[in-house]
């Protein structure tokens, strides 16, 4: 490896964005639209919209082993193979190639490519509210969020109007409505469950999921064709990904330089200006080392990678990691839990069915601890996500006895209605839940391995019991039979909502970023991926990352314009 001697001018941009996933795509687009010459650095390969979706149009019989992962895959990728199958494997990293250390079981699910995990995400989009932004302050937990809902509300609207989110307005203070495209529809059993909940549980309701799937044409994309194969990449551009949306928009400005195969290894510090001067990069094709410089820097490598990049960037000014005066970098790691729930079978309404594969389920917005004094044995809350369907062969395979003609007939006829639902629960920010860098073990580029030490605690475990009970109650209330509660006890990370490792806060002594996601200790660095999160709420988080990103880009632009950076 040698440091390539390109001239400094050639390697200088107005802005650098690290990572091209959900949040990085947004940063790149916003900065390009503001006229900044922007360099988007991505460690993985390029993935071109539509062209690079090799499995998108395949039929079930086109896969050699169906959707079963091979023994070899499971051995090489013990973590990722829990999430991928042969139709999506190419959008996930290989664990063998990208190892990390689990102090306790933690699934670090990753997609190293242009678009990051925006290609495979579940597209659920929910706003946070003041119930969430005020929670830490009220409970005296961790530090206060330096923003409130009103600061983010216009940016939620801005993002939703661009990406296209379908959903139903419900007029709830704790789950604010957004700018919605027409909602998808609930099927018969889901409506039945919804009606029963409305009747029996006055503070609860069931609504269709809010998802970044386009129910009508939008921004030259879509509409969604109801194939429910989104995670393979959509040939219709029916859902939001960086690849289908923000990156093409950034390219269209003429201001974007996209550089795949570029691992950012270090943030470079400028002693004189007390700011970042740029980044050091390993080109994974040539193994050459480059430096790139810019006025501002957006770090969007995703929570764990972002924290590890900061920790790996040491200098005499920052011996503990870049911008880490507070010593909070890497700490307060959170992930939602989604292990607990209930399942039930309904023996009526057999005359009804559905056509098409709606790419989402339903949502029961949070109903716990909305007010003070509920006397529950846990803090915060959860929402319920689930779906109703009739048993088809996948389920009947486990439920039908026998073999032969009659068996075949039953197997190929719609069975009873079922509902599966689980709680997506808030996880508190614990200082002990953290990532660090291993002092000895390195990856093939000589970078220290990330060590993850995470576990759920009493509050999360008690909440899971409550989830099981309230889910089962709602199903039983609606006449479901054989209601079964479950807790899969999945490890941390498996909800893939990791966040919190470089949190926002008012005070530079206890937080890494200020209320504009600007680093307290280096004003031209902005971090707008999940690491910025001060608490986790129970909402799927990516919409919030996007809103924070757009807001921070506008702030950075104003600061630069006014000569403050």
């Amino acid at each position, binding site marked *: 490896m040698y440091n390539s001697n390109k001239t400094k001018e050639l390697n200088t941009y107005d802005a650098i964005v690290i990572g091209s996933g959900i949040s990085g795509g947004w940063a790149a687009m916003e900065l390009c639209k503001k006229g900044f010459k922007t360099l988007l650095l991505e460690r993985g390969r390029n993935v071109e919209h539509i062209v690079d979706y090799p499995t998108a149009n395949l*039929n*079930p*019989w086109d*896969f050699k*082993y*169906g959707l*079963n992962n*091979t*023994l070899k895959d499971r051995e090489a990728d013990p973590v990722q193979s829990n999430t*991928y*199958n042969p139709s999506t494997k190419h959008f996930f990293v290989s664990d063998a190639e990208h190892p990390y250390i689990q102090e306790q079981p933690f699934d670090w699910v990753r997609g190293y490519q242009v678009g990051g995990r925006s290609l495979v995400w*579940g597209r659920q989009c929910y706003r946070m509210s003041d119930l969430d932004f005020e929670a830490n302050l009220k409970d005296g937990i961790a530090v206060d969020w330096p923003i409130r809902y009103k600061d983010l509300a216009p940016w939620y609207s801005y993002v939703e109007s661009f990406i296209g989110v379908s959903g139903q307005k419900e007029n709830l203070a704790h789950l604010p409505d957004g700018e919605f495209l027409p909602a*998808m*529809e*609930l*099927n018969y059993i889901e409506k039945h469950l919804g009606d029963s909940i409305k009747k029996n549980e006055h503070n609860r309701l069931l609504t269709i999921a809010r998802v970044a799937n386009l129910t009508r044409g939008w921004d030259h994309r879509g509409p969604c*064709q109801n*194939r*429910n194969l*989104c*995670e393979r990449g959509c040939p219709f551009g029916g859902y939001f990904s960086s690849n289908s949306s923000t990156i093409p928009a950034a390219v269209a400005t003429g201001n974007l330089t996209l550089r795949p195969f570029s691992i950012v290894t270090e943030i470079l510090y400028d002693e004189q200006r007390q700011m970042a001067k740029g980044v050091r990069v390993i080109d994974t094709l040539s193994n050459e080392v480059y430096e790139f410089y810019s006025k501002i820097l957006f770090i969007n490598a995703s929570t764990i990678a972002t924290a590890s990049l900061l920790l790996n960037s040491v200098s005499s000014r920052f011996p503990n990691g870049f911008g880490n005066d507070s010593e909070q970098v890497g700490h307060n790691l959170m992930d939602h839990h*989604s292990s607990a729930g209930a*399942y039930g*079978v309904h023996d009526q309404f057999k005359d*009804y*069915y*559905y*056509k*098409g*594969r*709606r790419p989402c*389920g339903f949502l029961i917005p949070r109903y716990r601890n909305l007010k003070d004094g509920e006397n529950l044995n846990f803090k915060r809350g959860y929402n319920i996500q689930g*779906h109703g*369907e*009739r048993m*088809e*062969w*996948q389920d*009947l*395979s*486990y*439920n039908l*006895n*026998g*073999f*032969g*003609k009659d068996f075949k*007939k039953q*197997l*190929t006829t*719609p*069975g009873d209605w*079922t509902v*599966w639902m689980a709680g997506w629960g808030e996880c508190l920010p614990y200082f002990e839940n953290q990532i660090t860098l291993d002092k000895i073990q390195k990856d093939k580029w000589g970078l220290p391995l990330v060590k993850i030490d995470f576990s759920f605690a009493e509050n999360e475990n008690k909440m899971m019991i409550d989830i099981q009970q309230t889910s089962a109650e709602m199903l039983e209330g609606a006449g479901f039979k*054989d*209601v*079964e*509660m479950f807790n*899969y006890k*999945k490890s941390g990370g498996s909800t893939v909502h990791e966040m919190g490792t470089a949190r926002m806060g008012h005070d530079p002594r206890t937080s890494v970023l200020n209320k504009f996601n600007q680093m307290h200790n280096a004003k031209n660095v902005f971090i707008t991926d999940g690491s910025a999160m001060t608490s986790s709420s129970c909402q799927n988080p990516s919409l919030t990352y996007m809103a924070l990103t757009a807001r921070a880009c506008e702030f950075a632009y104003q600061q630069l314009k006014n000569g403050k950076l």
Partner: protein
Amino acid sequence: MNRRSYFKRILVLGALGGASFSIFKWKELTRQVDPVLLWSKKDLVAELSEIIIPETDTPGAKSANVADYIIKVLINCMDIKKQNKFCSGLELVESHSMRNYGKSFLNCSDQEKQTVFEYIANHSGFSYRILNRINKKIFGESFFITLKDLTIEGYCMSKPGATQGLAYDYIPGNFEACIKLKPNQKSWATK
């Protein structure tokens, strides 16, 4: 992968974890099976799968070439223990037909095949499973269960199975949330 199928899969895998199997010794179950041996049993596997999903007014397991799928998936995707149990199961089928009819399974009459198959099914440890009973470890991965699962999967994901045995909607276009079931309507091949 889609979230919900992901979780469903975990549910199923989790439930499968509690299997116990007493007929064959553990030692035998940890040896790699010989793919050549398994492939040489393809006709037998095909015959068995056809008993589970026979040809009717729609194609059966044989015309969907399910045996091929079963063996490929077994060798490449299933753990060694399961592969071995499967091989032992095939041996059991053979020895049972030998003992009772003095001929190999493939040479048995339809009635005899049926009887042997019923014996195997009834001696698979348990014959009835409920998906949601996950807390009551009644799942297993006996020979019969593996054979049945892979037959169903191989059939329903094959072209004849998906498009003729079931209803396959390649690009639905719209979503109709509540439709009246039509007489003899088949269920959807994919979710």
